[in-house]
């Protein structure tokens, strides 16, 4: 099926001699197309995964909204206007097409992933995010013994006692952001650069014929 596509698309049937010259080109094109189709396969798998995680997230959010007795809607009315990002992106090979995106978690984040490590990058943002009436050192000491009172976990925007469904929603969205989102972005970039390559090989095949 693949060869069919290659022959039909890139090498005019009438160009008999060019077809021989184009053997090499056709092979290159075949390889590119196989890579391309594999990537598409991956793309659709990650797409499905992302859709699944997000829809679980939306469902949990809806459950959280329906579980409150006070008609609270967990939404924009409660966003903290001074929020600081706890999940950020790091880009490898910024200047190139081959750049790879990765989502990194701030270690101050106590919401979903409770793994502890020494915060470095987020130090300044933590100070800005904090309320200021509690020193950083005290806060760190306290984290071990009792729940944080000055957590920058976005869950806290919605109060101290939030429904479990809201926490579950957070988990789903966090997983989507950590894994599927950067994976999708990386795959799409690879697909795009392959498309460019395929098109230029095709163009070259046409001009030689």
């Amino acid at each position, binding site marked *: 099926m693949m060869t069919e596509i290659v022959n039909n698309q890139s090498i005019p049937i009438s160009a008999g001699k060019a077809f021989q010259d184009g053997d090499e080109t056709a092979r290159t094109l075949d390889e590119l197309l196989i890579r391309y189709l594999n990537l598409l396969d991956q793309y659709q798998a990650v797409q499905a995964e992302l859709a699944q995680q997000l829809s679980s997230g939306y469902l949990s959010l809806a459950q959280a909204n329906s579980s409150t007795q006070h008609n609270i809607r967990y939404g924009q009315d409660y966003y903290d206007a001074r929020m600081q990002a706890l999940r950020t992106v790091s880009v490898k090979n910024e200047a190139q097409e081959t750049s790879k995106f990765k989502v990194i978690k701030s270690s101050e984040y106590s919401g979903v992933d409770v793994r502890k490590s020494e915060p470095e990058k987020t130090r300044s943002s933590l100070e800005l995010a904090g309320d200021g009436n509690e020193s950083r050192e005290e806060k760190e000491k306290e984290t071990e013994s009792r729940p944080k009172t000055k957590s920058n976990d976005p869950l806290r925007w919605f109060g101290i006692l939030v429904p479990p469904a809201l926490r579950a*929603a*957070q988990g789903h969205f966090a997983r989507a952001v950590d894994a599927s989102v950067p994976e999708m972005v990386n795959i799409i970039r690879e697909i795009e650069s392959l498309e460019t390559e395929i098109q230029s090989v095709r163009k070259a095949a046409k001009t030689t014929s």
Partner: protein
Amino acid sequence: MAAPTASNKDRQFLAVIGDEDSVTGLLLAGIGHVTQPPDSQKNFLVVDQKTETAAIEAAFDNFTEERKDIAIVLINQHVAERIRHRVDTYTAAFPALLEIPSKDHPYDPEKDSVLRRVRRLFGE
């Protein structure tokens, strides 16, 4: 094409343009960021039926062109549909653009820009 390396190094935030649940969920995951006052620039826009298309476009321009600290822009597919011409003609390497499904508008392969390009590539 790609902007100079130096500027892309500062690209660290995800941004989102979407309906309230999409934005709330992603902010719960901790991507939300508001810059220091007096600018207090948000990296998200909540879109509902009342939101003007011009406002969506403005946010899109802000995240993709004006701001140099955004690495990935997430946009609900149905919101992207409202500014489809802008989304489809967007070719810059940074920030990356990703369309995501929303609660009321599940993923539609027909509108998927990657799959539409595939069709074009195979000469449909």
